[in-house]
Structure formats: C-alpha cells, structure tokens
C-alpha cells in the first residue's frame, strides 16, 4: 500500500534532469553551474597535464628528437620530420618478432592459468559453509594482490633459487638429481610469468565471481536438494550456469588487454640469461627509449602499442556490450 502511494506521488515530480533546461539560456546555466565546474577543475588540469599533453608529445615519434636540442615542445618546430621512419625501423628489425612473440606468449599463458583459476577458486570457496574458515582463507588468498611486484619478485626468485624450496622438494622426491636453475632457462620464463601472475591475482579476481554467485536465488538450491541433487551436481548445474554471463564478459575484456603483458613482472624477474624470452613491448620501450636514449624510437614503439591496444579494447568492448544485451533479454 505504502509503495503504491509512493509511486503515485512520484509521478507528480517533473522528470529529473530537465530542471533548468527550459527557460534559461546557456549563459545562465553556465553561471548557475560555475561552482560545479570549480569542483571539476583540479581533475581537469591533472588529466590535461599528465594524460593529454603526453598524447600531443607523441609527435616526437615522427621526428628526430634529441635531448640537447632545447625545450621539449619548442623542438617540435625545429627538429626534422621523419614520418614513419622509426616505425619502419621497428618492424624491419629482428626485435619486432621477438618482442611481439614474448608479449603474446606471456599474455596467452597468463590467461590460460590466470583465467580459470579464480573461477575454480570461487566455486570451491562457495562450497565451504564454515564462515570463520571461509573468511580467514579469503583474507590469505588476497594477500599476494596487495604486495608490490618488487616484493613478489623477491619472493619468487627466492622460492625458485637453486637452494630454494621448490628445488628442495624436487631433489628430495628424487625427481631431479641436481637443482634446476629455473630463473636462467629462457623458455621457462614465459611459464614463470604466467604462474606468477596467477599466484598474485587469483584470490582477488575470485571476488568478482563470488559476488555473482551470491546473487543466485537460494531457492534454486533448495529445489535441487529436494530433487536429490548432490553438491557436485548443484555446482555444475546451478552455480556454474548462473555465473556464465560474468565469465563470458570477463573473458572478452581479458582478450582486449592482451598487449598489456605487464612491465613490473618482466623487468624485475628477468636477468641477462633470459632476455631473449623476457623482453615484452613495455620493457623494450623503456630500455630503448630511456636507458639507451633513443627517445623518438621508444615513443614510436609505445605509440604502436597504444594504438593497437586501443583498437583491440574498443572492438572487444563493443562485443561485450552486445553479449550483455543478449544475456539480459
């Protein structure tokens, strides 16, 4: 009854958002909203300086920038325009193949482990009924997400070192005779990155799925129980199908980020013996652009990555939106 009355009074309120639009000119509205703009100002300036100005700075990818040639922006008018020279240089160098291969391989392997694990973990956590145990376990499972990659790299290198725990287990069980130098085997690096990424984020990424699971109508389980379905069957036929839309959306979005293989992990875990397998686009940009002083080249490689990633994300978002609509109707 009460809700009915509320609904009725609501209809008498003019549609929201229309206020002020009728009968007042743009100038008046701007004047009325000047405090709103004031509240936006700091964020506007920060975004302009640290996001948009660097985008204009990308012009340097088409020139021969040199640090000795005067202030950064005034150089735009004085340095030589070289067109797509730096891009050409990147594509024709042997580095292009190597860097792209490492980036895609590390991303793909990270998805292979890192995508299903949080789902499995969420399904398992959901089966635990003891509240205290569940909370404690979840707290521990988030732990690696909240430490920096610096700390994670220190931990991983220690565990995988020749005197580390993993080698201790392997030699103890007689699987290997001599300690394996995990961090010095090139091809292993891809797998180490994939497992490290999974280790760091699976607990945290499970939150999303647990939220989806908690939205499932409990009556479904009650009915299934009456029908005599085992817990495994309930999981397979109720929980899993219910979180399917979430899984699909997150999978599509993950594909959009495939060029973002990371920087921290690779930079901190790599050493000279595995460079052939560890170098990804972002570490390559840093190495050439800042460490070796090839500023314009570094900017060009960065622009290539940003542009491809941008197109990927846009197409993938459109796809995700379409899927969302389909699952809603």
């Amino acid at each position, binding site marked *: 009854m009460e809700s009915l009355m509320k609904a009725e009074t609501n209809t008498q309120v003019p549609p*929201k958002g229309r*206020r*002020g639009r009728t009968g007042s000119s*743009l100038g008046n*509205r*701007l004047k009325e*909203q000047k*405090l709103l*703009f004031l*509240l*936006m100002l*700091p*964020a506007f300036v920060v*975004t302009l*300086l*640290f*996001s948009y100005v*660097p*985008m*204009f*700075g990308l012009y340097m990818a088409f020139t021969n920038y040199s640090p000795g040639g005067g*202030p*950064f922006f005034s150089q735009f008018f004085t340095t030589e325009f070289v067109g797509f020279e730096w891009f050409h240089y990147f594509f024709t160098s042997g580095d292009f193949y190597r860097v792209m291969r490492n980036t895609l391989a590390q991303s793909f392997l990270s998805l292979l482990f890192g995508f299903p694990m949080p789902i499995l*973990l969420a399904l*398992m*956590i959901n*089966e*635990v009924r003891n509240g205290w145990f569940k909370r404690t376990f*979840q707290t*521990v*499972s*988030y*732990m690696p997400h*909240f430490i*920096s990659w*610096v*700390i994670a*790299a*220190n*931990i991983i*290198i*220690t*565990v995988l070192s020749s005197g580390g*725990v993993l080698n201790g287990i392997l030699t103890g069980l007689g699987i290997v005779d001599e300690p394996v130098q995990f961090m010095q085997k090139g091809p292993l690096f891809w797998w180490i990155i994939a497992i490290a990424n999974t*280790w760091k984020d699976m*607990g945290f990424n499970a*939150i*999303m799925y647990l939220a989806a699971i908690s939205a499932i109508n409990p009556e479904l389980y009650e009915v299934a129980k009456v029908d005599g379905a*085992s*817990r*495994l069957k309930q999981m397979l036929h109720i929980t899993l199908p219910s979180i399917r839309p979430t899984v699909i959306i997150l999978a599509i979005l993950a594909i959009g980020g495939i060029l973002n293989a990371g920087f921290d992990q690779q930079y901190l875990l790599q*050493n000279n013996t595995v460079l052939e397998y560890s170098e990804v686009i972002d570490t390559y*940009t840093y190495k050439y*652009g*800042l460490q070796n002083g090839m500023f314009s080249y*570094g*900017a060009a490689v960065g622009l290539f990555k*940003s542009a491809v990633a*941008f197109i990927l*994300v846009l197409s993938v978002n459109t796809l995700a939106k379409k899927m969302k609509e389909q699952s809603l109707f």
Partner: protein
Amino acid sequence: MVKSRNDLFFMSFVYLFIAAVFVVTFYPFWNILIISLNSAEDTLRGNLYFWPRDFSLASYEQILSDGEIWTAIKVTTLRTIIGTPLAVVVISMLSYTLSKRELVGSRFWTLYFIFTMYFGGGLIPYYMVLKSLHLIDNFMVYILPSMMNVFYMIIVRTFMQQLPQELDESAKIDGANYLQIFFRIILPLTTPVLATIGMFTAIMHWNSWFDSYVFTYDSDLKTLQAVLVKILNQYQTGSMVNDAQQAADASKRMAVSPDTIRMAATMVATLPILMVYPFLQKYFVKGMTLGAVKS
C-alpha cells in the same frame, strides 16, 4: 546413502583444493620470514624450510642501521599520507560534478576523462612532459599525477548517482549552493566508498617503485620499494657485496649475507601492508563489486 558418500568425496576434494591454495599462497611469505630471521652462515647450508634454525636479528639490525632505508621509509610514508587525501578529494569533487545530469556538456566531460583510460601517450612522452614541468627529481612527481584515477571516479560517481536525488533538491530549495551541498550533504554520505578508494590509493602509494626508480635520481627521494629494487638488481647481477663490504662481513663472521639482507628488507616493506589490509577487507570487497556493477 549413496548421495552422502558422493558429497563426502566432493567435499574432501574442495577442502584439499583450498588447503593447496592456502599453502601455495601463504608459504612463500613464511619462507621469506624465516630466512630473514636466520643467521647468514646457517642459511648457506640450505634446507631451511619451516623454522629458523639459528635465530638471528642481525639482518634487521644491519638494514635498520642504514640511513638509506630510513630516508626511504620517510619518503614513502610522506607520499602516502599526503597523496592519499589529495587524491580522494580531487576524485570525489570530480565525481560529484559528473554525477549531475544538468551539467552543461556532461557527455563531453565524461568522455574527456574516460578516454584517458583507453589511450595514452606512453612512457617516453610522459617522461618528457614531466621534465618540462620540472617534476623530474621532485617529490611532487609522486603526488600530482596520482591525484586522478578514472576507474575510482566511476566507482564514486555510480555511488553518488544512487543517492536519493531529493537530498540535493531540498537543499537547493533551502538556498544551498553546489559547494555547500557537496561538502555538507554528499561527502558525508559517500564515506564508505571514499574509504575504499582511499585504501586502494594508499596501497598504491606504498607499493609504487617505478616513478621513484625512473623519475628521480636523488637518493634522498627514493621510496622504500625503489630501494628494494636496487637491492634486487644487485643480487641479480651478483655484485651485491663489494670488497669493503666483504671484508666487513668476514670480520663479523658472516652475520649477514646478501640473501638474508634482501629477505629482511622485503619483510620491512611488506609488514605494514600485511598488518593493515585484513582490517580493510570489507571496504575493498564492496568497492570491487560496486565497480563491477557499472563496468
């Protein structure tokens, strides 16, 4: 009977899986802790897995007697306590403005901010801009760029849009302007979500190393994590112990080693996070799910 036996089998698998994940997640931290608490000489014997064999605080004494680490702790603490409230204020002010549907050009402004999530200039032009703004080797390089975060803005804006509109309307009728409405009415109601983004920002500040590593050269400006990167790099290249250090170590009969020092430094950088985050759990779970609703 068959049903319950099936369930028993299934639940054993569930608990086994969870136990395995628990060990894999927790044990590496434990491993670091015990190595950092063991004497260097004994650590060299290897097989140090469950408990410190030869308990020693020498590694901690060594790194905590180093001025560098205290400077780093000071810089990191400063950037966290200055940077976090600034970011929360700037982001929440922006979120309020963008939550107003009557805002002139509202679609344009939203796009202006959202676009930066999808496209950026990349590292090299960014470095050049920082240089032009005299932010290289400047403490403000830690504070200014991190005052804005589009993802957090979306979370806060979504939260504000869900507040009852009548609050605003009635305050406006009472003659309050936007500033008064924001600070007196909206901000207090938004505290749970501000706590969430504040916590994430604080952790980001504590954990960041790249800006310190690349944008500062002055050793007085290095953050804790950047110092740790230096220690890690020295370990990776195997040149951690120089001659003078080696002589000093020898006279101390190897009370410390590159390994145990590295572990102790890791623990010093990790402990504050590990001690704080369990208490903030409920906030970030809420924030994650709130953000998920929108994006």
